[in-house]
C-alpha cells in the first residue's frame, strides 16, 4: 500500500462490515477527535505559528493588491465597476468557471473510473496519457487550436471539399470552455484516480450484490466515496480557469483576467489590482463552496494494508471507451504537439539575428521549478499537517488562506513581489531566490492540497503504534509519518514543478536580467509570431514536464523502490522465495513447523465440573504479587458522553484478561487509556505500581514512555518498512536493545521464528496475508518486551475460519512469552476461549469480571447473561420453602442460584458473590437459602436457561415410557437445523401469574403474546415438526441462575 498523493480529502476507507463500521463510528470516531491523545489537549502553538507564518507569506502579497486598489481614483473605479460591461465580464467569468469545472468533472471522473476500475486495454498508458494535458502550456495549445480550427485553418481546408463552408465558431465561450476543459480536467482526473485506488473495493462487491445495475453501484457507492476527491480536483480546475489569461484572451472572451491585462497594458496597474480583487472574491466563493462539498467525516485510509485492485469487464464497451480516451488525448496532447512539430519542420522563417534557443534556458526552467517545488513542499508541510491533524477554525482558515492568490494573475502577484523585493530585500530583488519565492506564492496551494491529503491518509494508528513502540511524537513523525507522506509530497512538488515550467508573467517581472527560461523564450518567439523559434523550446518543455507527470500520478512508483530495497536487504532471503509471488496461505501454523508443542490445557475438557474448580484457559505461573496493571475509578468522556465511567480493573502478572463488550461499550477507550493514547478525566492508571496517569495530580506518562505494547485491530504495520524493520522498530529506541548482549537482529530473528514467519523478513506488509500481518504485528509489539501487551480486536479483520485458527495461534504465542496482556474483543467465543479472566464491559462500565466459565454460568446480571450466548428466561416463583414453581414444573431451591441479590438487598459490598457464593451442584446455595430465609413471602424469579440446559420430548408420543403421562408444556414454533444440533424454539403455555419479563427476541411473530419462549438445543437425532406440543425439562446439572423480578 502506498498513500496516494491526491487521495482526496476525507475519503473513508472504513471497515467492510456494518458492525465494524458502527464500531468505528461510535468508538474510534470519538477517539479520532482525540487522535494523538495528550498532544491534543493543548493547541500545537509552535506548529500553528509556523503555519500562520506560511499563510502570511501568501496572504501579504495578495493583501498588497488591496492596498494598491485603494490608490485608484474612486470615480473612475466606480465607473469601471458599474459600467454595463462589468456585468457581462462577471457573467462570462462565472459561466466560464462553472462550465469548465462541470465539464472537467464530467470528463475526469468517468476517465478515472475507466482507468482504475475496468479492464481497459493499456490502462497504465492511458493513466499517464490522460494526465498529460497538464504539461501543455495553455498559451501554446490555444495557438495550436486557432491555427487549426481558425477560419482558414487546417480543419476548414479538410472539410471544405465536403461542402462545409464554415466550422462552428471557435472564438468566444464555446471554444474557450472546450479548450480550458481539455487542459483542466486532469486535475479532477488525478485526484479521482487516487481516491478510487485507495478506497476499499469490498464496498463495490457489497453494492453489486444490492444494486442490479452498474450505474446504481456508481451512483450509490463509487461517487459518494470519491466525492471529496472530485471536489478537490474541481477546486483546482475552477481556480485555474478563473486565473487563466491566455486562452480567453486569444479566444476573445471577455473575462476578468483579460480586463486586468487591458488595464495593466494601459499602464494603470492600480486598476489592474482593483480588478484582481474581483478574482480574489471569486476565489473566496469557490473556496467556500469546495469546503461545503468536502465532507468532514472522520477520515484516513485503513492501516491494514492495501486492498486488491478491482475490475469491471468492459466487454464490447472497450472500443467506445478506447475511442473516447484516444480522442481526448488526441485533442489535448497530440494536436498541439503536432502543431509544434509542424512549426519545427517548417523552421524559423525570418532573420532574427542573435535570437536562438539555448540549452541553458531549459536548465534555467528546470532548476528554478525544482527549487520552487522543494520550497513549496517544505512550506506546505506545517500548513497541511496542521489542517489534516488538528481540525479547528484556525487550521482551516490557515489552509484556505494559502489559496487566495491562486486565481490572481501572475503579473499582479509578480508586481507585488517587485514592491516587497525592491523595498525590503534589495539584495534579493531580481535574483533567483525571489523568483523561486514568487513561484511558491503562486503555487503553494498545489503542494498544500497534495500534502494535506497525504497526511489525512496516514492512519493515526501508525503514529500510535510508533509511540507505543517508544517513539516520542517528533521521532514518530520522522520515522513513520514523513516516509508515508513522501509520495504525496512528491506529487505536490511535481505539480508545482509543472506549473513552474509554464509560468511566464512573474518570471518576466522577477527574473534576473539576462535570465531566460523556456517559457520566456517561447513567449518572446510567439510574441513576435516567430513560431518556428518557439517549436524547440516548447517541445523541450513538454517533454521535461511529461517526465514529471510520473510524480503526479498515484501508483506504482514504489515497486521500483522496493526492488532496490530488496537488493540491498536481501542477504538473508531465500532467492526463490523472493521471486515467486505466492501469497502464503493463512493456515501456516507456526507450531507445526517449529516443533515445540505448547503446554496448554483446554477449558473444554472440564465438562460438568463446578465453576469453582475452574481451570484457567492457559497454564501460567500464578504469581500472587501486586497487579501489573491497575485502573482505579477511571472516567473518560468525549463531549457529554462518557465512554468509560468509574472503571476499576486490575491484571496480574502473566494474566491474559479479555475485555469483552458490545460495540461502543468503551472497551477500546479503556485500552487507549492504558496505552497512554488518551488521558483520563479522572481516576488513576498504574503499571507495576507506578502511576502513569492520575487525573488528580496531573500525572501523565505518554505512550512512548510506558512499557506497553499494542496490537491494533487493523495491524498498523508500517507499510514503508519490511517485516524485519517493522519488528525491529521498537528495539532501536528503547532501553538500548543491544546492551544486554542481544543484538536487535537476533531479537527480530527470534520473534519471527516465534510467530513462524522467518521466511518473510524482507517482505513488505502489503505482500502478506491477513493472518501473517497479525502475527507480525504481534511480534513487533512483543519486541520491546512490554510490561503489558494490549490487543485491540486483533482478529476482527480476519475472515471467520482464519479467526479461529489465529485465535489459537496468538494465544499460544502469548502463552510462550508469558506476557501480561489485555485483549479487547466483541467476540464472546474469542473472549471466553483465550482469556484467563474475562471482563464484560457494558456502557462504559465493567459489568462483571470473572473466569470465563463463571461468567457464562453465573452471570451477575441479565445484561451479562444476554451478552454471553443464548439466554432464555423461564418465569418462576419461589415460595417460603425455597421450591420454585415454573410453568414446566417445580425446581428445588438448591437447583437455583439467585443472582443480582443486591437489587433486593441480598448482597453487600463485602460479599463477592461470584467468588465465594457460587458453588455448583456439590455445595449448597448459601445465597439463595439466605434469601429465602429472609423472605417470608414468595419471590418472583426469572430462571436463566441456556439452550442446552433443557431438553424437550414429544408429549403426544407413546414411546414415553414414564409412569407419569407427559403434559404438553408448550409448542415448537421454530426449528433450525445446524448439522450436529437442532435448535428448537418453544413457546410455553401461558401460566397465570408467571409472566416472564424478558424473552428471546429474535422474531416477534413467534412470541405468542408474552408467553415464555425457550430456546433448546437438541442432538441431531431429535427431530420434531414445528407445531409439535412438547414437554420441557431442565437437564442442567449445575444450579440455574435466577434473577429476582
Amino acid at each position: 500500500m502506498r498513500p496516494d498523493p491526491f487521495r482526496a480529502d476525507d475519503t473513508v476507507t472504513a471497515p467492510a462490515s456494518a458492525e465494524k463500521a458502527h464500531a468505528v463510528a461510535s468508538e474510534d470516531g470519538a477517539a479520532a477527535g482525540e487522535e494523538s491523545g495528550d498532544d491534543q489537549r493543548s493547541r500545537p502553538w509552535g506548529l500553528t505559528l509556523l503555519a500562520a507564518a506560511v499563510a502570511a507569506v501568501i496572504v501579504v502579497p495578495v493583501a498588497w493588491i488591496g492596498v494598491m486598489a485603494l490608490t485608484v481614483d474612486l470615480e473612475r473605479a466606480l465607473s469601471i465597476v458599474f459600467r454595463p460591461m462589468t456585468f457581462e465580464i462577471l457573467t462570462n467569468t462565472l459561466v466560464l468557471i462553472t462550465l469548465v469545472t462541470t465539464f472537467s468533472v464530467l470528463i475526469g471522473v468517468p476517465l478515472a473510473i475507466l482507468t482504475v476500475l475496468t479492464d481497459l486495454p493499456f490502462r497504465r498508458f492511458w493513466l499517464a496519457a490522460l494526465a498529460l494535458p497538464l504539461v501543455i502550456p495553455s498559451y501554446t495549445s490555444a495557438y495550436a487550436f486557432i491555427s487549426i480550427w481558425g477560419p482558414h485553418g487546417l480543419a476548414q481546408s479538410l472539410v471544405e471539399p465536403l461542402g462545409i463552408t464554415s466550422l462552428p465558431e471557435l472564438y468566444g465561450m464555446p471554444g474557450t470552455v472546450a479548450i480550458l476543459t481539455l487542459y483542466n480536467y486532469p486535475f479532477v482526473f488525478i485526484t479521482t484516480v487516487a481516491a478510487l485506488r485507495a478506497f476499499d473495493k469490498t464496498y463495490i462487491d457489497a453494492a453489486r450484490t444490492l444494486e442490479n445495475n452498474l450505474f446504481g453501484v456508481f451512483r450509490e457507492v463509487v461517487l459518494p466515496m470519491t466525492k471529496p476527491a472530485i471536489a478537490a480536483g474541481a477546486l483546482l480546475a475552477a481556480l485555474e480557469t478563473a486565473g487563466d489569461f491566455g486562452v480567453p484572451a486569444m479566444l476573445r472572451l471577455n473575462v476578468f483576467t483579460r480586463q486586468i491585462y487591458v488595464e495593466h497594458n494601459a499602464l494603470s496597474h492600480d486598476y489592474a489590482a482593483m480588478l484582481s480583487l474581483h478574482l480574489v472574491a471569486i476565489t473566496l466563493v469557490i473556496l467556500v463552496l469546495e469546503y461545503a462539498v468536502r465532507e468532514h467525516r472522520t477520515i484516513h485510509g485503513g492501516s491494514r494494508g492495501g486492498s486488491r485492485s478491482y475490475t469491471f469487464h468492459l466487454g464490447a464497451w472497450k472500443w467506445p471507451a478506447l475511442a473516447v480516451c484516444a480522442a481526448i488525448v488526441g485533442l489535448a496532447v497530440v494536436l498541439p504537439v503536432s502543431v509544434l512539430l509542424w512549426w519545427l519542420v517548417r523552421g524559423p522563417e525570418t532573420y532574427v539575428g542573435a535570437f536562438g534557443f539555448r540549452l541553458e534556458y531549459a536548465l534555467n526552467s528546470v532548476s528554478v521549478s525544482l527549487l520552487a517545488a522543494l520550497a513549496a513542499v517544505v512550506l506546505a508541510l506545517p500548513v497541511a499537517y496542521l489542517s489534516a491533524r488538528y481540525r479547528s477554525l484556525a487550521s482551516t482558515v490557515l489552509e484556505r488562506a494559502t489559496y487566495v492568490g491562486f486565481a490572481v494573475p501572475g503579473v499582479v502577484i509578480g508586481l507585488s513581489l517587485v514592491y516587497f523585493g525592491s523595498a525590503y530585500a534589495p539584495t534579493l530583488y531580481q535574483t533567483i531566490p525571489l523568483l523561486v519565492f514568487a513561484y511558491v506564492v503562486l503555487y503553494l496551494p498545489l503542494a498544500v492540497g497534495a500534502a494535506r491529503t497525504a497526511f489525512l491518509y496516514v492512519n493515526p494508528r501508525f503514529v500510535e503504534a510508533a509511540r507505543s513502540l517508544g517513539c516520542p511524537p517528533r521521532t514518530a513523525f520522522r520515522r513513520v509519518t514523513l516516509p508515508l507522506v513522501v509520495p504525496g509530497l512528491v506529487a505536490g512538488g511535481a505539480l508545482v514543478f509543472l506549473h513552474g515550467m509554464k509560468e511566464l508573467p512573474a518570471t518576466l517581472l522577477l527574473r534576473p536580467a539576462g535570465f531566460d527560461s523556456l517559457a520566456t523564450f517561447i513567449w518572446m518567439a510567439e510574441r513576435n509570431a516567430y513560431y518556428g523559434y518557439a517549436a524547440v523550446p516548447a517541445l523541450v518543455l513538454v517533454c521535461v514536464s511529461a517526465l514529471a507527470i510520473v510524480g503526479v500520478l498515484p501508483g506504482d512508483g514504489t515497486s521500483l523502490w522496493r526492488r532496490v530495497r530488496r537488493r540491498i536487504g536481501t542477504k538473508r532471503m531465500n532467492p526463490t522465495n523472493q521471486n515467486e509471488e505466492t501469497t502464503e496461505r493463512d493456515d501456516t501454523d507456526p507450531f507445526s513447523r517449529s516443533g515445540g508443542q505448547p503446554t496448554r490445557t483446554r477449558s473444554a475438557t472440564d465438562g460438568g465440573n463446578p465453576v469453582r474448580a475452574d481451570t484457567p484457559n492457559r497454564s501460567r505461573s500464578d504469581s500472587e504479587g501486586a497487579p501489573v496493571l491497575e485502573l482505579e475509578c477511571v472516567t473518560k468522556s468525549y463531549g457529554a458522553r462518557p465512554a468509560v465511567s468509574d472503571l476499576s480493573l486490575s491484571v496480574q502478572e502473566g494474566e491474559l484478561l479479555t475485555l469483552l463488550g458490545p460495540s461502543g461499550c468503551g472497551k477500546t477507550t479503556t485500552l487507549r487509556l492504558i496505552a497512554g493514547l488518551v488521558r483520563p478525566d479522572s481516576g488513576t492508571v498504574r503499571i507495576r505500581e507506578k502511576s502513569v496517569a492520575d487525573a488528580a495530580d496531573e500525572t501523565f506518562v505518554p505512550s512512548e514512555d510506558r512499557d506497553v505494547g499494542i496490537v491494533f485491530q487493523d495491524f498498523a504495520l508500517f507499510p514503508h518498512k519490511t517485516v524485519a524493520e517493522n519488528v525491529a522498530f521498537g528495539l532501536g529506541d528503547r532501553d538500548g536493545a543491544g546492551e544486554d548482549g542481544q543484538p536487535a537482529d537476533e531479537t527480530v530473528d527470534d520473534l519471527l521464528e516465534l510467530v513462524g514467519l522467518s521466511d518473510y523478513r524482507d517482505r513488505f506488509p502489503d505482500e502478506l496475508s491477513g493472518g501473517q500481518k497479525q502475527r507480525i504485528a504481534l511480534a513487533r509489539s512483543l519486541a520491546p518486551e512490554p510490561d503489558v501487551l494490549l490487543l485491540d480486536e486483533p482478529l476482527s479483520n480476519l475472515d471467520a475460519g482464519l479467526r479461529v485458527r489465529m485465535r489459537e495461534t496468538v494465544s499460544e504465542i502469548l502463552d510462550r512469552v508469558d506476557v501480561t496482556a489485555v485483549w479487547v474483543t466483541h467476540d464472546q467465543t474469542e473472549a471466553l476461549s483465550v482469556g484467563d479472566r474475562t471482563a464484560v464491559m457494558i456502557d462504559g462500565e465493567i459489568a462483571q469480571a470473572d473466569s470465563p466459565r463463571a461468567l457464562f454460568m453465573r452471570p451477575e446480571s441479565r445484561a451479562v447473561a444476554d451478552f454471553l450466548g443464548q439466554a432464555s428466561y423461564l418465569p418462576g416463583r419461589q415460595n417460603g420453602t425455597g421450591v420454585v414453581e415454573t410453568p414446566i414444573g417445580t425446581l428445588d431451591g438448591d437447583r437455583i442460584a439467585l443472582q443480582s441479590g443486591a437489587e433486593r438487598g441480598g448482597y453487600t459490598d463485602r460479599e463477592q458473590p461470584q467468588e465465594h457464593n457460587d458453588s455448583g451442584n456439590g455445595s449448597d446455595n448459601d445465597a439463595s437459602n439466605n434469601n429465602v430465609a429472609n423472605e417470608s413471602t414468595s419471590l418472583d424469579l426469572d430462571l436463566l436457561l441456556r439452550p442446552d440446559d433443557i431438553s424437550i420430548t414429544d408429549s403426544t408420543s407413546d414411546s414415553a415410557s414414564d409412569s407419569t403421562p407427559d403434559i404438553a408444556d408448550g409448542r415448537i414454533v421454530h426449528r433450525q437445523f445446524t448439522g450436529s444440533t437442532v435448535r428448537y424454539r418453544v413457546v410455553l403455555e401461558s401460566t397465570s401469574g408467571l409472566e416472564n419479563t424478558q424473552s428471546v427476541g429474535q422474531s416477534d411473530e413467534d412470541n405468542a403474546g408474552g408467553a415464555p419462549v425457550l430456546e433448546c438445543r437438541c442432538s441431531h437425532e431429535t427431530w420434531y415438526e414445528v407445531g409439535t406440543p412438547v414437554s420441557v425439562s431442565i437437564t442442567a446439572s449445575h444450579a440455574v441462575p435466577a434473577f429476582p423480578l
Partner: protein
Amino acid sequence: MVSGCLGLGDDESDVLGDPTYREGRPDPGGVSMEEMPDLNGDLTIYSGRSQPRIGELIEYVEAQYDDLTIEVRYDDTADLISTIETESETPADVFYGSETQSMTHLKDEGYTVELPDEVVELVDTGSVDPDGHWTGFTRRFRAVAYNRDAYDADELPDDIFAYAEDERFRGDIMWPPDQGSFQAFITSMRLLHGEDETRSWIRSMIDDQDIEASPGGDSALAQAVGDGEVSVGLTNHYVVRDHGGDSVGLAFTSDDAGAMYNVTGGTVMADSDDTETAANFVRHMLSAEAQEYFATTTWEYPVIDGVAPLEELPGTDEFEPPEFDLNELDDPDPTLELLREENVL
C-alpha cells in the same frame, strides 16, 4: 560626416543585421559609433522592445567596448513601467520603449532626466521629445495591410475615414483593438480630428463595416490578411516584414491619423548611477550603424538624416504623415474610455 564601411560588412561574420536587405544599399550616412564617446561600466536597460528585434544590436554595441557590460531586461512595456513605478529605486539606467507613451509617462512621473543636446540634435525634430527627455530611435507608421489578390494599391482610399464608409470593405476588414499601437492611433485621431469624428468613425466601423477584431494582435491580423480571411487590416507598417507573406501589400493614407507614426526610443532614468554613460548609449542607437541596422532588419524608418528607409517600403516623400506632438499620445484614458463605451474593448 559620411563614413566609409564603418567596419560593417568587412568581414562576413561581423555583419550587423539582416544580410539579405543590407546588400546593395549605399553606405549609411550619419555619425559612426567610432566617433562617439566610449561606453564603460555596467548598464542596465529595461527594454519594451523584444530581443529578436534589438538583441543583436545591443550585443554588437557591447562587443565594441571591453569595459562595458550591458544587461537587458526584456519584458512587456506595461510590465516594465509598472515595475519602475513599483520599485523603490529602479536598477535601470535606460528605458528602451517601443512607443512614446511609456516614455512620456515616465517623463511626466519624474523618472527621467533630460538628454544632452549633442544626442537630441542628431534626431529629426518630429521624432524627439520637445523637452529633450526622450528621443526616438526609429519611426513606425500606421498603415493599411491589404491582400494583393483582392486589391491593387491604387484602388485603396488614401483617407482613413473612407475605410469606414466604403462598402467594399463591409465584413472584410479587421483591426487589433487591444494593441497599444492601435490605441495610440485612435488617440491621434482624437487629437487630430476631434472626439466626435473619432467616435462616429468607430461606430461606422462596427455598425456598417462589421469590422473584425484580430485574434492575436498585429501579426495575426497580417496573417489573416495574407490568408484572405479579410482583405484589409489596420496595422503597423513593419508587420509585413514577418507576417502574411508576399500576398500582403501596404497602403498609406495621407495627412490624417491613418498615417500617423510613433517612435521607438530611449530615455535615461533619473535613478541611474551614471546618466552620462546611459545618455551615450542612447546616442549609440542614433549612430549610422544602428540606424542602418533598424532600416534593414526591423524595417523601420530611421530618425536621422543620411539613412534611407528600406526600398521595399514607400519613401517618406510618397505620403504625408500628420503633424502633432508625440507626447500627446501619453494619456490613453479617454481613448480607452471611448473604446469601452463603443464596446470595442
